[in-house]
């Protein structure tokens, strides 16, 4: 079996952002009037329990651990550190093991960042989203845009090897110039990595309701396309190279954990609603933190559902995932028919000509914009 990565889900936020449909809860949603302390107190114990009963005998050491959420930075560093220690104790970590923390700029300071470093984290990713107050307001984000610069510098001085920022484009009311300002602000900071995501309106969110009511309207796809091309151009200009559809980094700072997803490696997701993929089986845990804790307490399985992929599903998935990466897909991994379909996209400029000549299917910036369509054409 391949090396096993770990994802640790921290399902808590101080406040739910209007666009977010992640599996996360405010303390008040879990128990009325409760504080974060009370609802999360025994959570790490539960995660450790899931880890204990994990029936997986990895042969190698663990290459990456990623704490996502929710807002992992809300929890005390020593609690998160207990999870890292437990993984390390059982499987061992590779010498260069990448341990990432997702953080809200408002929830950390110099001291807390140092504590996270001490707990073992060496990579941090801040949710910046935008530099424009009117955009942040639509997104319902609480942080102060100025605090981003501060925490990036603090993280650097605390010794994080990789610092990343997340941006969102295509928010209702955001112009191309607004977006340019956000990207430029991000790139003016000493970061190693940038993720830029087109806003997806998920059903059931406050944002979806606002759009349905007509209070807000989504920008058209053409503007979104221009925004994507702009961030790509600005990143490349300062030496952050594109390596996945929505990700750019300095050489050597690509997120190894996320690359594991796109290369269909094995990973274990800990926590409620977390997905795992081990040896061709995908499964996911029960969604609600309370049920998750309760099941673990009572010795009941926390797996909500699983799927065993067929050969053809596995192949489709591999195409769907690997096309997102700079390396793309090797011609060897495509059938003759798929290659024939792909070559049409070389002609239209959606796939790189030089990549094709070196035996690979690699997206050009235009091609990245219609990557899903190209995947559909290839797998149909």
């Amino acid at each position, binding site marked *: 079996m391949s090396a096993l990565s770990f*994802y640790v889900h921290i399902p808590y936020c101080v406040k739910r952002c209007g666009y977010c449909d992640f599996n996360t809860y405010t303390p008040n949603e879990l128990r009325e009037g409760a504080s974060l302390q009370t609802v999360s107190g025994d959570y790490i114990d539960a995660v450790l329990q899931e880890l204990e009963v994990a029936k997986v005998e990895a042969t190698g050491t663990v290459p990456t651990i990623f704490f996502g959420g929710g807002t992992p930075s809300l929890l005390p560093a020593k609690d998160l550190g207990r999870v890292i220690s437990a993984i390390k104790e059982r499987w061992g970590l590779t010498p260069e093991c990448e341990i990432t923390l997702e953080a809200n700029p408002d929830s950390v300071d110099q001291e807390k960042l140092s504590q996270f470093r001490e707990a073992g984290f060496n990579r941090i990713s801040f949710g910046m989203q935008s530099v424009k107050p009117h955009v942040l307001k639509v997104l319902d984000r609480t942080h102060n845009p100025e605090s981003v610069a501060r925490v990036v510098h603090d993280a650097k001085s605390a010794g994080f090897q990789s610092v990343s920022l997340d941006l969102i484009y295509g928010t209702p009311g955001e112009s191309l110039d607004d977006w340019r300002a956000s990207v430029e602000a991000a790139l003016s900071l000493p970061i190693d990595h940038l993720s*830029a*995501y*087109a806003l*997806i309106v998920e059903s059931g969110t406050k944002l979806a309701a606002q759009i349905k009511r007509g209070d807000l309207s989504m920008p058209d*796809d*053409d503007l*979104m*396309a221009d925004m*994507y091309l702009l961030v790509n151009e600005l990143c490349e200009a300062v030496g952050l190279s594109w390596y996945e*559809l*929505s990700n750019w980094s300095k050489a050597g700072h690509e997120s190894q954990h*996320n690359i594991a*997803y*796109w290369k269909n490696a094995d*990973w274990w*997701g800990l926590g409620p*609603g*977390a*997905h*795992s*993929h081990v040896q061709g089986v*995908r499964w*996911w845990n029960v969604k609600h933190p309370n049920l998750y804790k309760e099941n673990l307490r009572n010795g009941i399985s926390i797996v909500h559902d699983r*799927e065993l992929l067929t050969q053809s*599903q596995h192949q*489709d*998935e591999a195409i*769907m*995932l690997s096309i*997102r990466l700079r390396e793309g897909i090797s011609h060897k991994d495509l059938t003759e028919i798929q290659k024939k379909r792909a070559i049409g996209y070389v002609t*239209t400029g959606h796939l790189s000509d030089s990549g094709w000549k070196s035996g690979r299917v690699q997206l050009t910036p235009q091609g*990245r*914009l*219609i*990557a*899903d*369509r190209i*995947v*559909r054409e290839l*797998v*149909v």
Partner: protein
Amino acid sequence: MPAISLSKAPQPASTDPAQIRNFCIIAHIDHGKSTLADRMLGITEVVDPRHMREQYLDRMDIERERGITIKSQAVRLPWRSGIDGGEYILNMIDTPGHVDFTYEVSRSLAASEGAILLVDCAQGIEAQTLANLYLAMENNLKIIPVLNKIDLPAAQPEKFAAELAKLIGCEPSDCLRVSGKTGEGVADLLDQIVAQIPAPQGDANAPARALIFDSVYDVYRGVVTYVRVVDGHLSSRDQIQMFSTGVRHEMLEVGVISPEPVPSKGLGVGEVGYLITGVKDVRQSRVGDTVTNFNNPTKHPLAGYKDPKPMVFSGLYPLDGADYPLLREALDKLQLNDAALVYEPESSAALGFGFRCGFLGLLHMEIVRERLERESNLSLISTAPNVVYNVKLDDGKTLIVTNPSEFPEGKIQSVEEPIVRSTILAPSEFIGAIMELCQSRRGVLLGMDYLSEDRVEIRYTLPLAEIVFDFFDKLKSSTRGYASLDYEAIGDAEGELVKVDILLQGEAVDAFSAIVHRDKAYAYGLMMTAKLRELIPRQQFEVPIQAAIGSRIIARENIRAIRKDVLAKCYGGDISRKRKLLEKQKEGKKRMKMVGRVEVPQEAFIAALATDADIEKAKAARK
């Protein structure tokens, strides 16, 4: 008791014509005909109360659900008159209630000596009822006006009695009042049928002549043919002959319906009953034909046989191309029971393989489609209905066009289209709305009469093509559902007609071509191009949508090339969801139809072919 038990009642083949009364009921949908028939079955005791169920005579689900009768039937009801105490046999001949089936109605009328004009006294008479009433009067039938639903709080018997009296030339006090629901007045109605309707007249010694007024396919028995004997005698030992085809058939069974089939020795003058000959297809035993005795045939057929001609055509396609053989089977099966349905295979570049079907009218079309979908579990797309055009070419040849794709390019001298005379009944407050609608559909006003103070009859000639395209729905919506419509073909007339093609990237989409009046071509072109622009997803290249008459472009829209089709995030928890979406899209892509290089989802075709009314219906169904 006025009821007589079946065994003691006069028997088939030996009933004196003087004891027979043959009548039909003319009524609009919803005016309570089936309920009244139920009461008659109950009061004459031919149906045991324990076996009684609602709409007893309506056999098909679709009849019961929509409350309309598609096929007629005849029931033999023994009755002792409360007036003279004599024993009588009443044959109730059920009639289809809709304009599309006028021909069948006229045959039912021809089998009767009298008609009950049944009108809901909360609603008044409707256009189709009026048309059938005129038909009955032309056939010299004795009309008994009856106001139904007198138990309703909204009943206005005085008002509608006056209306009926004016229409048929009697006194308002001659209108009987009944309630099919409670049974009130029904016994009196049966006595009046005996008293007012003349007994049948016929020559018992002449060669047999019987009129076929209905013909129904039964899975177990084959075709069941309903007849009214005019002269002579049909016996279970006879060989019979159909006059129009000359074909001889063995008589397997003869009998009466009471209300279940009861075999008998035969049928005599004036009697109504059924024949079974082992024929498997109703086209061999057609409504209007004369049945005679093979060994002693008549030389004089009964008047009035004609082939029903389809007036409206539409392409029917299975949503799933693999269902094509199933659709063929379903049509074959339906035709066994529906002599008026015609179809032939056709193929459309956009919709695949299907059938061009001909119908008597819009309701007929709707019913056929619904039965195909329901009874054979098919999902169908139908193209916009069109009429039959006679196209005269420059070289003098004439072409009959039942499909816009057959419309010739250029070199056309003239085009003729069918014209109908339509009658619309509605409350007078809607006169303006109705006239506006008819004018916009190239109507010519023929006249207008007040039926009562606030109800009016408006007559227009209209091209049938204008009626088949959502006219009825528009009429209903502009009169809050109060207007009723009837029409009859009165011939063909020349019209300024052109074919409008819809092109995607320069390629015509056959399913969207339409033959329209020149003045409306532009509006049709604009409507379709705008609709398609909304419905067809953006492609990787720009797609022009054009409307054209011949090579002349009259409208144009553009679908811009797509620039973005990608989901930004795909991390661990997103992968399964994204793969499932991809699998769904893969399936969706298989259902895409290619028009040249343009991918068009099937839903776009369905939506583009839907009328406003279809969309409303779909919305209502979702609620």
